[in-house]
């Protein structure tokens, strides 16, 4: 049952990621990225991370991807034109990417062959409470710094989006 669910979600995630690269129109890429994020939320649930799974759906698939689609609609994005300028990128790129993948997989398989050490506390179901306790005790300073980061991001977005007085268009 677990294996079936894993392969279902992993298949959706991989298909979505490949489709993201394959599609020429950015709106289809955005929709396949939403599929990837939904599948990843399912995998998070299987890994006992309920809070992260729900936040993934709400923040990533909800807020961030809506922002992407919104901008795509605003700029009226057309299908991208393939120029095929670089011969080197075409010939050297795929082997290098394959090498990177083989390298990462080799390291992971060497270090974590088939380990599955599940800590009992992770399956007790009070996931959100534990995260909340950690966030407001051990990680209080990073949490507060994050609020400053978001404030800066809001101000940056507003300043960038504002029309300048000397802007004739």
């Amino acid at each position, binding site marked *: 049952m677990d294996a079936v669910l894993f392969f279902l979600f992993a298949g959706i*995630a991989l298909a979505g*990621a490949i489709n993201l690269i394959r599609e020429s129109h950015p709106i289809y890429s955005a929709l396949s990225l939403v599929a990837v994020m939904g599948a990843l939320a399912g995998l998070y649930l299987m890994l006992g991370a309920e809070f992260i799974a729900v936040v993934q759906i709400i923040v990533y698939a909800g807020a961030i991807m809506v922002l992407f689609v919104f901008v795509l609609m605003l700029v009226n994005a057309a299908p*991208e034109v393939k120029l095929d300028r670089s011969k080197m990128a075409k010939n050297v790129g795929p082997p290098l990417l394959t090498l990177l993948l083989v390298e990462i*997989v080799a390291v992971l398989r060497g270090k974590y062959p088939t380990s599955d*050490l599940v800590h009992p506390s992770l399956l007790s179901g009070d996931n959100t409470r534990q995260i909340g306790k950690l966030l407001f005790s051990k990680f209080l300073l990073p949490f507060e710094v994050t609020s400053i980061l978001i404030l800066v*991001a809001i101000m940056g977005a507003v300043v960038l989006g504002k029309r300048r007085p000397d802007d004739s268009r």
Partner: protein
Amino acid sequence: MIPVSWYLILSAVLFVLGVAGFLIKRNVITVFMSIELMLNAVNLSFVAFGYMLGDYNAHIFVFFVMVVAAAEAAVGLAIIMLMYHNRKSLNVDDIELLKF
């Protein structure tokens, strides 16, 4: 039970696909989406390691990655809007002001 290494390998494959998209795609918004894909792949390995070690700190890390990704998306998309306003193009090859 599913070995944790399967999750890690899936995460590696997704990350490499994100790198490939980042290098192949010419539309700046799709390049941005590839970055999000890479962030998601790394989040998956964080959660898998957290599961393996029974450690909630991994979840906190994923939480912070998501927050930073949200802030990055807001600022990045504002820059893309401005770029489109000035250049009337989304092609990364047309943005060459910093090219030496």
